[in-house]
C-alpha cells in the first residue's frame, strides 16, 4: 500500500464515504470491495482516503482502525474490552431473550409448575433460563411438588404482574381475547391455556417459600 505524502489533499467526501462504509460493514471490508463500490474513483484516491482515516484513528480515544482478514475494520481498543464485556453483562431488566420469554410464558399460564414440566412443554431444557427469571424477580419458588424427587414448583411474582401491567393472574390475556382484539385465529386445541382457578392465589411476596 502506497504511503501518500499528500494526505492533506484527500477528498473529504471520499474519506467520508470510506469511513461510513468501513463503519457499517458487518465484515471487514476489503480493498477490492471498496474499489468496486467506488468504481468511479481512481484506486489511488480510495487508498489515500483509507490511509488518511487510518492516521486519524490513531487519535480516536476509544476506537482503532485495524487490518483484519484482508480488510479494514473499526473496533474498540483491546485495552477497553473489559468495559465492553461489562456492558454486555449489564442486561436490561425490561428485556428478555426469546428463550426466557417462552419459559416465562409457560410458567405464567401453567403455574405452579416444575422445571421438568416446563422443559417438557417447551421441548428444550429450561434450567438455565429459570435462573435468569429468578434473578430478575419475575418468577419465584412457591413450594415442592409431591412426586419423586420433590422438585421445586415455580410461579410468577408480584413484580411480574407489575411489569406486565396486570391486576392479577385472571388478567392474563386469553387466546380468545387476542383473537377478538386483533383478529388472530386461535389455534385449535389451545383452549386449555386459561389459568385454572387453583393456581390463582399466587402467594404474595411475603409468602415463605
Amino acid at each position, binding site marked *: 500500500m502506497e504511503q501518500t505524502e499528500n494526505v492533506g489533499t484527500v477528498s473529504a467526501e471520499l474519506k467520508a464515504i470510506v469511513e461510513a462504509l468501513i463503519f*457499517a*460493514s458487518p465484515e471487514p471490508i476489503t480493498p477490492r470491495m471498496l474499489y468496486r463500490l467506488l468504481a468511479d474513483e481512481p484506486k489511488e484516491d480510495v487508498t489515500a482516503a483509507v490511509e488518511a482515516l487510518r492516521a486519524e484513528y490513531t487519535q480516536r480515544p476509544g476506537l482503532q482502525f485495524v487490518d483484519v482478514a484482508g480488510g479494514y475494520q473499526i473496533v474498540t481498543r483491546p485495552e477497553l474490552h473489559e468495559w*465492553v*464485556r461489562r456492558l454486555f453483562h449489564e442486561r436490561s431488566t*425490561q428485556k428478555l431473550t426469546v428463550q426466557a420469554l417462552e419459559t416465562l*410464558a409457560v410458567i405464567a399460564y401453567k403455574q405452579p409448575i416444575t422445571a421438568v414440566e416446563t422443559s417438557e412443554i417447551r421441548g428444550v431444557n429450561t434450567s438455565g433460563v429459570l435462573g435468569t427469571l429468578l434473578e430478575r424477580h419475575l418468577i419465584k419458588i412457591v413450594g415442592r*411438588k409431591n412426586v419423586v424427587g420433590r422438585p421445586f414448583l415455580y410461579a410468577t411474582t408480584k413484580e411480574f404482574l407489575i411489569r*406486565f401491567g396486570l391486576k392479577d393472574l385472571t388478567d392474563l390475556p386469553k387466546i380468545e381475547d387476542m383473537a377478538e382484539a386483533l383478529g388472530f385465529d386461535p389455534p385449535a386445541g389451545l383452549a386449555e391455556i386459561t389459568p385454572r382457578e387453583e393456581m390463582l392465589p399466587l402467594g404474595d411476596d411475603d409468602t415463605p417459600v
Partner: protein
Amino acid sequence: MTDYPDFESSPDAYHVRLSAFEGPLDLLIHLIRTNEVNVCDIPIALITEQYLGYLRLMEELNLDVAGEFLVMASTLIHIKSRMLLPRPDPAQEDEAGEDPREALVRRLLEHQKFKAAAGLLHDRETLRGAQFTRGDGSVAQAAGDSYEPEFEVDLFSLLSAFRGVLERASRRPKMVLPPDQISMEDRIQQLLGRLSETEACGFEDLFSDGDGSRPYMIVTFLAVLEMIRLKLIRVFQSGSFGAIRVYKRARPVDAPHPIGDPQNP
C-alpha cells in the same frame, strides 16, 4: 423538514398513496378538497350527495363497502336533515355551538392532524433509515460470550410466545408421560419381581397387569428396553412371526449400570 430530497420515498410518493380512501373520513376530506370548500363550513347537502354517489359507484364496481362508510352516510344524512330544520333564534347559534356539523368537523380535523403526523413520522423514519449503525461483527468478538439479542416484552409477546410453545408441542410426537404415572425404575423392579417368580414369560404377558392405559404400556415397553440394555433379561423370538419370550438372566459383571446409579462411572 427533510433536507434529503433524493430519498427513495419522498413525501410526494407518500401522498399519492394516501389518495386511496381507506375510510369514510378520507373520502370526505377528498370531497372537501376537490370542491375547494372550507372544512369549517361544509356545504353539507352537496357533500352528502357526492358522498352517496361514491358509495353507489363502489357498489357498482363490486367493491366491498365497509360498514364504516355506511355509518358515515347515515351521519351525513342526519346532519343534513338537522340543517334544514328552522332554528328559533339563529343569533344564538354561535354561542351555543349548535351547528350540527360541529362534531363532524372536529373529527375531520383530528383525522387530518394524525394524517399529517403520520407524514412527519414518515420523514423521520426515512431520515433514520439513512443512518446506519456499526456492523456487529467486531463487537460480538469483544463481548466474548455469545450475545443473544433481547427484546422488550409485553403481554402480547407473552401470549404469542406461549401460543408458539403450544403449537410446537402439539407437533411433537406425544411421548410425555403424565407426571403421576409409575416411573420406569419402579416398573423395572415390578417386572423383575414377576420374572423371578417364573424365570420366563411371554412378551405380551408383561403388559397384562396395570390399568392397560396407553401411558402404562409405554412405561412397560420402555422398561423392557432398558432391562435389555442393562442385560437383566434376554428376549427370543421363535421365527419371523413367532411368539416372543422373555427370560431373566444373571447380570454379567460388564453390564451397564442404570443411569443415575451411584456406581455409574
